[in-house]
């Protein structure tokens, strides 16, 4: 299909889809547009980091439907991206990324995921599949998502996401580009053979990224502006620096200066906002808020300190509140910055390195050893692993045994991030209480002199 014909189709389809989306939330289109305009009327300078982030995502979602708060409609090229697809090239070509998992999380938070899950399961999506994907699939079947111009998919970490992307390409009759990502690159050593493999992997992915840019040009008519790409990578680097500085403050401050459950909403290493001007501002503001929090003069806390693995339950739940009543979530896997600053003079290889260097996509032993090396006294781990996420759920036992050997308390919760149909807090409560008790006991043992411990 010619790009112009696709634009024409999308323009018509997105009008219907926006109406369907609004109807799902219980609003009509006008009410939704007005609500958005009212929210966007507040100056950015008056917003917290978290609100700035929320506004950015809301703006991006509306634009994907060709809508702009308070302004007339304008066509927006949209690329559906799988969760781990880098965004810099997409932004450099003036295209809006749309991430199905983020949309699913949004529906989960709004209490709107249940109906979509049932739609998907009723249409052949197995109950065993990832609930983010199933929610997205239900939304696709109900036609509430903005039709894509193109679909961009990576092969790594999540098998159902890659299969679902192919399904969407078929369903919307839109072209798909797949970026194949080699496995286990982060865990390579320094032998000649490993260095050679690293270079080959970087070269393989970098060439594919160039192919991807050509694919986008072919399918949309938009050419890649290299100076723009450099500028966008520069923004990613700047946002990364603010994020890391904020992470360091949050991890080590006592009393704590961050609210862990809110921090999980950033899910920084999965987000589609890398490369935007706004995300630089979001992470700068977050850092400034943490700095201000550190000057509050409150006394230090002896509460257990938690490192959170995987994502949070997005639906309304008792779990997170209960945990935060008794402990502080000071860091999370999803906000961990695992990649080096990117080289502005070597954009494709830099992006390739960043994608490849994910510790999550390497053998469990190596990634767990890395975690053990980075844990501090008094910290414990809560791993919230959905059973529908094969990748993380299946590594829980091995991780738990390795943590146990290293003397690090770990609690694995078989939960779900989106699907609340199996949520049963009371069953979990006993295990959580016992976990906190073990953390407190460990803190007491650490505080006692060694001679006393030997008694």
């Amino acid at each position, binding site marked *: 299909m010619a790009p112009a014909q696709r634009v024409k189709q999308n323009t018509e389809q997105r009008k219907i889809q926006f109406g369907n989306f609004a109807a799902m939330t219980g609003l009509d289109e006008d009410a939704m547009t007005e609500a958005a305009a009212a929210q966007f009327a507040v100056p950015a300078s008056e917003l917290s980091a978290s609100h700035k982030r929320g506004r950015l995502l809301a703006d991006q979602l509306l634009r994907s439907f060709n809508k702009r708060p308070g302004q007339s409609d304008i066509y927006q090229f949209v690329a559906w991206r799988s969760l781990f697809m880098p965004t810099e090239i997409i932004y450099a070509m003036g295209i809006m990324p749309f991430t199905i998992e983020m949309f699913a999380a949004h529906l989960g938070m709004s209490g709107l995921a249940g109906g979509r899950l049932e739609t998907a399961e009723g*249409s*052949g*999506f*197995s109950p*065993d*599949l*990832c609930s983010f*994907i199933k929610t997205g*699939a239900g939304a696709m079947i109900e036609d509430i998502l903005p039709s894509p111009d193109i679909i961009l*998919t990576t*092969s790594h970490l*999540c*098998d*159902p996401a*890659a*299969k*679902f*992307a*192919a*399904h969407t*390409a*078929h*369903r919307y009759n839109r072209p*798909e580009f*797949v970026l*194949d990502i*080699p*496995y*286990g690159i982060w865990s390579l050593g320094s032998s000649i*053979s490993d260095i050679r*493999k690293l270079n*080959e*992997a970087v070269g*393989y992915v970098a*060439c*594919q990224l160039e*192919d991807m840019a050509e694919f986008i040009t072919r399918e949309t008519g938009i050419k890649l502006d290299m100076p723009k790409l450099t500028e966008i990578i520069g923004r990613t680097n700047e946002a990364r620096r603010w994020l890391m500085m904020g992470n360091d403050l949050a991890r080590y401050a006592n009393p704590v200066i961050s609210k862990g459950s809110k921090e999980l909403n950033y899910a920084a290493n999965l987000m589609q906002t890398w490369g935007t001007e706004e995300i630089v501002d979001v992470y700068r503001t977050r850092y400034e808020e943490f700095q201000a929090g550190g000057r509050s003069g409150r006394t230090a806390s002896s509460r257990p300190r938690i490192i959170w693995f995987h994502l949070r339950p997005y639906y309304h739940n008792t779990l997170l509140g209960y945990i935060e009543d008794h402990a502080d979530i000071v860091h999370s896997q999803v906000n961990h910055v695992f990649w080096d600053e990117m080289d502005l003079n070597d954009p494709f290889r830099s992006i390739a390195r960043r994608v490849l260097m994910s510790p999550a996509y390497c*053998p*469990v*032993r190596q990634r767990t050893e890395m975690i053990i090396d980075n844990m501090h006294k008094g910290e414990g781990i809560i791993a919230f692993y959905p*059973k*529908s*996420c*094969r*990748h993380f*759920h*299946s*590594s*829980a*036992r*091995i991780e738990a*045994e390795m943590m146990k050997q290293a003397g690090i308390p770990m609690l694995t919760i078989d939960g779900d991030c989106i699907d609340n149909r199996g949520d049963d807090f009371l069953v979990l409560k006993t295990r959580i209480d016992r976990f906190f008790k073990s953390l407190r006991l460990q803190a007491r043992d650490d505080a006692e002199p060694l001679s006393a411990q030997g008694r």
Partner: protein
Amino acid sequence: MNNPKIGWFCTYTPIEILEAAGLEPYGVRLDSGKGHEDVYLGDSMCSYVRSCLGGALSGEYDFLDGVVMAHSCECMRRLYDGWEFKRGDIKPGCLNLLDVPRIYTERSVDFFASEIERFKQSVEAVYGEISQQAIIDAAVKSLHTSRLLSIIDGARKRHDTPVTGTKVQEIMAKGMKTNRDAFNTELETLIANLGSGDDRLSQPRILVYGGPANARLVEAIEDAGGLVVYEHMCNGIRQIRANQNLKDDPIRYLARSYLSKPPCPRMIGEHGIFGLSRLKRIAQEYKVDGIIYFTIKFCSNAQALWPMFKDVLAGVVPIKMLEGDVSPDINTREVHSFVKNLSRRLQQHGTGTEG
């Protein structure tokens, strides 16, 4: 001759490298764990992988000298982790974790060729140098196996299909554990004696699509009165390599041959889509009356492919989705009901894709 045996688990493992080293590849397939399931990988893993690790932990594979694993999907990647984590309790060590691209392009062929080269080096480190000629010889023999299997497969397009699916399953299972030369000889004999299957003319012809299927699936379909004419499964057609040009560098030839073979649901991009569209033609060529889509529970790729599969093949022939595991247990009632419906349809309207 008792050459060391090396276990493999996924059809994307280029076993010709093992053969070139004078080793005997041993496919751990339907007999994976003999019912033993592990606990280390949790209960959200596919039963094939869990039974493989369970079998390893209970000593089922102690006769193997080592194993090689392909990083083909999220479950196989965890099999490696479990095997490696419990290496003190499992006798055969893992020689190599082979990273297999999920797309078929010139670039992925290059990358996979490098991976195969690394696999070769890891085998050489234990068993000595492998010459280029030995790889070519192994590739030629393997290609011959594929051609012989293709002849048998081609004969199944006939109305009087000369072999049953159960027989083909038996052949494929044997091929995974038998010396290549002996297996090729056996296939040649079988082809020379291929007769006629006139007595099968009235049976509904069924295509089975799935992963490493349940050991009893094909037999259960045929017990119910169906005739399986095509197995798009790991223990079926996916073991037939694509016919590529062996004038290429032999390692690159292997890379291309494996990546371009009939795709497992793990494959994405154009080759994955091509595999689905080709199924429509296969259904016509083999005069298929119905399809059974069998997915092992918790196989994300097969489970996630199903909604698209039924969209793409809608209206071609009736399709039945079955979910199960690798154990010989099967829901025979569902199988019987589907075959019976196909038989009734045949009597009323004639053959599915021909009618």
